[in-house]
């Protein structure tokens, strides 16, 4: 099969995280699978020829792993390795159900391998494009010692010729991203924590962000989230540090709740399914590796930039 370009998609799954990496071999890697009922499992059913190289679960909250059983079923017997973290009590009902589902999937041959997500580890690499996907966090000890699930959430990096291009920060803290990826200057940082990292109010948060210096921060967030994600002080710090913020869905942070509507129709344009809840802001983002850099769809970027100016108070552009 002819080699395809490396493509990274940050999916809009409502309130939750799910990224799809299309590998040059035609396989895909899923980084988190989003909440229950999101369209990723239906997409896998209707793309029955795609093999899942691996599923990387960075955090076991429902907005990251809720769709796992449907994904395992939808991609039956086409899944290579599932990487997951032990990040909560073994008596946690929901967690035990997840483990049981994976255990059954392994025994039935639906999943080839199950591994713990531990740093340092290269999950995938390609010598032709010089790209590699690595686990930056957590190492074994941090995983065991973490006082809460968020503090052991996985951090992943996608590098091209050793230069970090994309960082997935899951639900971790800004301090942890800075500790693992200082000076990395990624083109994209996903999260952390849907635009509301726990330490966003810390006086050092801006300095930590500056030490990482992401060009764009992707906030994977749902219009109806009850947690007030994304937080305005985090958006302000990202912008002050020289980065731009893009949210998958529009939230009442930027527009009156009654006036929420799709800002642009990016799902259809990219041929990706739209979730059954929430309103698109930038929607899904597709990045294609071209000449050593990841490029997104210019037309959609421009359309989005123009459309958000019509919102009541778009936090990603308005003066503060």
């Amino acid at each position, binding site marked *: 099969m002819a080699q395809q370009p490396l493509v990274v998609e940050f999916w809009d799954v*409502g309130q939750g995280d799910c990224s799809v990496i299309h590998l040059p071999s035609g396989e895909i890697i899923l980084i988190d699978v989003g*909440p*229950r*009922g999101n*369209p990723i*499992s*239906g997409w896998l*059913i*209707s793309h029955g020829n795609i093999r899942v190289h691996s599923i990387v679960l960075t955090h076991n909250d*429902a907005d990251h*792993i*809720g769709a796992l*059983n*449907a994904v*395992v*079923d*939808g991609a039956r017997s086409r899944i290579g390795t599932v990487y997951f973290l032990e990040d909560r009590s*073994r*008596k*946690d*009902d*929901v*967690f*035990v*159900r997840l*483990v*049981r*589902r994976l*255990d059954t999937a392994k025994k039935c041959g639906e999943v080839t*391998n*199950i*591994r*713990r997500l*531990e740093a340092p*580890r290269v999950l995938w690499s390609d010598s032709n494009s010089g790209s590699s996907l690595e686990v930056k966090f957590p190492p*074994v000890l941090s995983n065991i010692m973490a006082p809460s699930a968020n503090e052991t959430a996985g951090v992943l990096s996608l590098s091209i010729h050793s230069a970090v291009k994309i960082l997935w920060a899951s639900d971790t803290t800004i301090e942890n991203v800075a500790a693992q990826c200082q000076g990395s200057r990624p083109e994209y940082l996903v999260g952390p924590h849907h635009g509301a990292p726990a330490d966003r109010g810390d006086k050092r948060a801006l300095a930590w962000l500056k030490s990482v210096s992401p060009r764009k921060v992707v906030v994977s967030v749902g219009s*109806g989230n009850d947690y007030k994600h994304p937080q305005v002080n985090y958006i302000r710090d990202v912008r002050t540090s020289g980065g731009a913020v893009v949210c998958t869905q529009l939230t009442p942070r930027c527009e009156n709740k009654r006036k929420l509507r*799709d800002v642009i*129709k990016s*799902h*259809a*344009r*990219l*041929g*990706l*399914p*739209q*979730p*059954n*809840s929430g309103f698109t802001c930038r929607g899904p983002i597709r990045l294609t590796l071209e000449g050593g850099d990841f490029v997104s769809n210019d*037309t959609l970027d421009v359309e989005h930039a123009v459309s958000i100016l019509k919102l009541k108070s778009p936090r990603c552009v308005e003066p503060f």
Partner: protein
Amino acid sequence: MILAPDIPTERASYLANELPRTVEVSSSSQFDLDVPIEAELDQRHFAFGEYFLILERYPTIAYYRRTYELEIRGWNVRLPWQRGGEISREIIRKFLFLLRKAERKELSKHEEREWEEISRQADYRRFCVEHAPAIFTEGRLLAATPADLEIEWHDGTKEVVPRSVAKSLELLNPGESFTALANFGEGNKLVSISQVAPAPSAEVIDGETLWRSWPSNRS
């Protein structure tokens, strides 16, 4: 299929296969046969076979008197007048054709522009939700009343659904776990459920026992 049992949604119009009714929006001199007459189609809901598509605005139809053709403006679809009753079919065909190409990243530059215009007109989210395949799901029937059933999904969220939506769950006794295929609609609410089968309860699985045989990088 309706989106969700308790959310009022626009009713589907299945008049789609009847001859279209149009309202004239522009006209020209009867002697100038090369200038088309434009009319707004009094219909936004289009159905054909299993497919159902809603447009966000009424499409404009142009009638060409010299060639006896009609054109769906913005869709690049032309038909002979006598095939006017096939507008629904043609709209859905065009929509699906471009959607499949968009899914496979096979759109040409010209098709990309067409798709941009067409996808802007369509209620894409509703299309996706209504045409999504049923997905595997797990849960537990918590309680049953004469009108409703209370379910706890595998992720810990709870939902009360009318019996009319989840009739097949009546197979279960309260407290029993199940696996099933389900469709979720607006707001992730259950729309339909099928192939319900009782499953072992999470409570009978001892987490510690399960973990003992669990693969580890550390070993």
